[in-house]
């Protein structure tokens, strides 16, 4: 296996043993970006010089055996919604074209302290709004398992980079499934922690009460490593939790014997592909064989999650995106004759269609006279969904289901039908609204395209989600599946 195909844990050992230097490893990954980058279009920006500079510094640390941490020298990709000091950060939007933040996101700071190597900024749906990466303000991303397929979204660039060997691991962000769904569609592990587990400071906001940063990795162990590095309270984010961060490795390999696993009947939605349903049922049976007890449970308000989400998230987005007015930074339209025209032209030209659609949805939902019927009602639904999870978790330790009802679909298949596109997130959205955590782990292929098993654990019980996901991964060979691009074959 070449270096770029390996996991964080394997590479850490090689780095510590001086079997490989961080510079060699980084060059290996950069080489893979050179080789397949034009096919996946996973990156918006490759920070080659920065990466090599960081790799050299990491090698110094490794050589001196001083402050060597699990991520020291590991090349990582960052979703473009994360602010990196002095590096163009656009959230996949033309309205932020050329925007260079003067500060680092907290997660970026933490990874920097670990000695990680930043490969660049990965492509995503504009402002993380989308499920296929086709809403990128720059170009769509192609799935390394089939270049005519979408990688999922909105963290499609991060997913494709990890799945194609263009990054060892990546950070994504998940507002309604944007880590888990692309992870499922590209055959990698994607973990959305509980809201408040990871600081959002420096994450370009989509929907503030739902956004959460999380790991996208080759296996469950790597997700645990990455989450361990970024989790924890941040005084700069008042919504980050003071709940202590456990050692995720102390329970990771405890297995599922004696655990109660719940299967929400509502998660087998209409329109789920038979192959996906079969793979999920097989995965549940396998965990049962590992000693867990399986129980069917009900989350009765699941069907309300999607409509509630499409009120709350656009409402917050309509306000969060008001700052992009062309006055201080980013894109500014030319030819405006007055202030209002300046605003209108800048936003007309700078934002893509989906972003405009959601700004309009959200503005409407918050408007005087409509607030109670829409925003307030949606918040009440959110409370019901939180209650659903609470009751379910009184009976079971985790919930199991598919991550996405379908495998990766062809590019262009759903771009004309926003609602069909929104339905991709029907099983991932409840975890965001319900303040719980969810991980997607590969559980099979259908016609050569990956399927993801979703494990949902209670709020701030990330270690439980990791434990179950790891047990499943360890009992199967799915983690060894590599995309054709990763293997070096034509996709």
């Amino acid at each position, binding site marked *: 296996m070449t270096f770029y195909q390996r996991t964080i844990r394997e590479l850490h050992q090689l780095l510590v043993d001086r079997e490989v230097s961080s510079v060699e490893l980084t060059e290996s990954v950069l080489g893979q970006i050179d080789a397949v980058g034009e096919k996946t279009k996973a990156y918006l920006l490759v920070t080659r010089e920065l990466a090599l500079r960081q790799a050299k510094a990491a090698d110094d640390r490794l050589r001196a055996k001083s402050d060597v941490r699990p991520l020291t020298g590991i090349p990582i990709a960052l979703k473009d919604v994360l602010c990196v000091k002095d590096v163009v950060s656009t959230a996949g939007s033309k309205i932020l074209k050329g925007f260079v933040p003067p*500060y680092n996101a907290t997660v970026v700071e933490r990874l920097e302290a670990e000695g990680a190597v930043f490969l660049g900024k990965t492509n995503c749906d504009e402002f993380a709004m989308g499920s296929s990466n086709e809403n990128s303000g720059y170009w769509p991303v192609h799935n390394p398992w089939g270049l005519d397929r979408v990688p999922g979204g909105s963290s499609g660039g991060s997913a494709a980079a990890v799945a194609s060997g263009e990054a060892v691991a990546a950070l994504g962000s998940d507002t309604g499934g944007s880590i888990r769904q692309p992870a499922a569609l590209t055959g990698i592990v994607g973990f959305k922690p509980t809201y408040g587990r990871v600081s959002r400071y420096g994450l370009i*906001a989509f929907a503030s009460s739902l956004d959460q940063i999380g790991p996208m990795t080759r296996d469950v162990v790597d997700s645990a490593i990455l989450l361990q590095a970024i989790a924890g309270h941040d005084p700069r984010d008042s919504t980050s939790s003071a709940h202590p961060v456990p050692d995720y490795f102390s329970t990771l390999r405890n297995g599922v014997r004696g655990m109660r696993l719940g299967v929400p009947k509502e998660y087998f939605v209409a329109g789920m592909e038979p192959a996906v349903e079969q793979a999920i049922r097989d995965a549940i049976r396998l965990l049962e064989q590992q000693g867990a007890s399986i129980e069917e449970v009900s989350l009765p308000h699941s069907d309300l999650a999607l409509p509630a989400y499409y009120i709350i998230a656009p409402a917050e987005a309509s306000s969060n995106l008001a700052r992009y007015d062309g006055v201080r930074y980013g894109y500014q339209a030319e030819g405006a004759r007055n202030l209002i025209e300046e605003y209108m032209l800048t936003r007309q030209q700078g934002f893509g269609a989906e972003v405009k659609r959601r700004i309009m949805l959200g503005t409407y939902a918050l408007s005087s006279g409509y607030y109670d019927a829409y925003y307030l009602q949606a918040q009440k639904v959110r409370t019901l969904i939180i209650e659903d999870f609470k009751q379910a978790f009184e009976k079971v330790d985790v919930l199991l289901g598919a991550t996405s009802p379908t495998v990766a679909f062809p590019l262009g298949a759903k771009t004309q039908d926003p609602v069909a596109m929104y339905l991709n997130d029907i099983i991932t959205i409840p975890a965001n609204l319900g303040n719980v955590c969810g991980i997607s782990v590969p559980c099979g292929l259908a016609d050569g395209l990956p399927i993801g098993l979703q494990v949902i654990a209670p709020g701030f019980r990330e270690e439980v989600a990791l434990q179950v996901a790891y047990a499943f991964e360890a009992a199967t060979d799915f983690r060894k599946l590599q995309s054709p691009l990763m293997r070096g074959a034509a996709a």
Partner: protein
Amino acid sequence: MSAIATRFEVVVGLEVHAQVLTQSKMFCPCSTDYLTAPPNSITCPVCLGLPGSLPVINRKAVEQTIRTALALNCEIPEFTKFDRKNYFYPDLPKGYQISQYDLPLSRNGYLEFDVNGEPRRCGITRVHLEEDTGKLLHAGAIEESESSLVDLNRAGVPLMEIVGEPDLRAADEAREYVMRLRAILQYIGINNGDMESGQLRCDANVSLRPEGSTEFGTKVEIKNMNSFRAIHRAIQFEVARQSSVLSSGGTLAQETRGWNDAKGETVSQRSKEYAHDYRYFPEPDLPPLTITASTITQLRESLPELPTSRRDRYIKDLGLTAYDATLITSSKAFADFYDEARRLGADPKKAANWILGDFSRLLNADHKEIQDASVKPAHLQQLIGLIDAGVISGKMAKQTFEAMYRAQDPGPALEAAKGSSQISSDAELEAIVDQVIGQNPKSVADLKAGKQQALMFLVGQAMKLTKGRANPERLNARLREKIL
């Protein structure tokens, strides 16, 4: 006006914005000391509204707002939250202002004040906390300016909004209300109450209704009143304007009008058709706050003596007139100066006269604050002491005070006064008295004939000769001895 007053009742409600001059801004660590800083030098990703930045609540600003609310007799609910007020403007970097909507920090209070010695009470609807906006600089008038410059130093400075009930019935009530409110804010240490620099801003909602009516008339909001005088004039103008419209059978538009101080009139700015829909919703970046009973108790105990009780104490314990006591306590700095002078031994009434008389006159002429003056309480106390001991005359004291006030260091002027003290020795007085008698035979004759005014004239002549340095009582006695 009198004809109008019999037909319409004036209804005024005030919204006062007060900057809370904590060390750092409302949601970020930037300094609030923006007045003299170069444009955009006191900014950070948070107050610039950069993508990805998040607000963190300034605890001190919350505490200061609760203290103010307690001083205004408000209820402090246990649960409070921040909301976003959404609108586009270049001085508002996030496209929304973090403010408070339906669950403010406090509500249901009142403010007591006086108008010409008559007690008044105005309800306080709520006191809430928000962030200030930046400032726009136009080259010339906004309509004609080719471009506008944005300075975001002020963006994010904590701003308290004090919403009053429509309980005020005249322009002078409105002015007195704001003056008392300003004093309270100064006492609590919210800010210095400077209206010109915008530390304190006032908007007035003014409407008229037929006397006896319980329904409100169409209200007009007046903005841009930058002084107490402006508040008074603007409301007076608006009352006259509205009553003339109504008296001639017209109807009023609900609108916002700006006060033009130079022209002395209000000008229409924005009518209701263009009113914003602010789309308030709970600020998702800030968890709601719980204010515990023990916090409230602690903050209540931290309050200083407030103007009303200080004034009452001055009247009751020191024998000041209500008028003087109100004036001195209307500024915390004045009252503090006064108390310190008294503590050093100055006579209460004399100290009050000096502070409200010569000292105020000089300060007003220079637009200076008492705390910035070189004359300190000890100087005033010593000066009063010299007069009491008969070392200098009242007239000399006035000259000395002005000299002290003008000097960087009042010490030498005070020493000079002591040195050039009154001529009290009999030998010196004798010579002066003889000179006056020699030069004014007619007055001497008049005095002998029983005209007491002649004595006053002769004393005056002697004072003139000595440039006021002669002791008037002794002079008086010597003249009587010599002539009668």
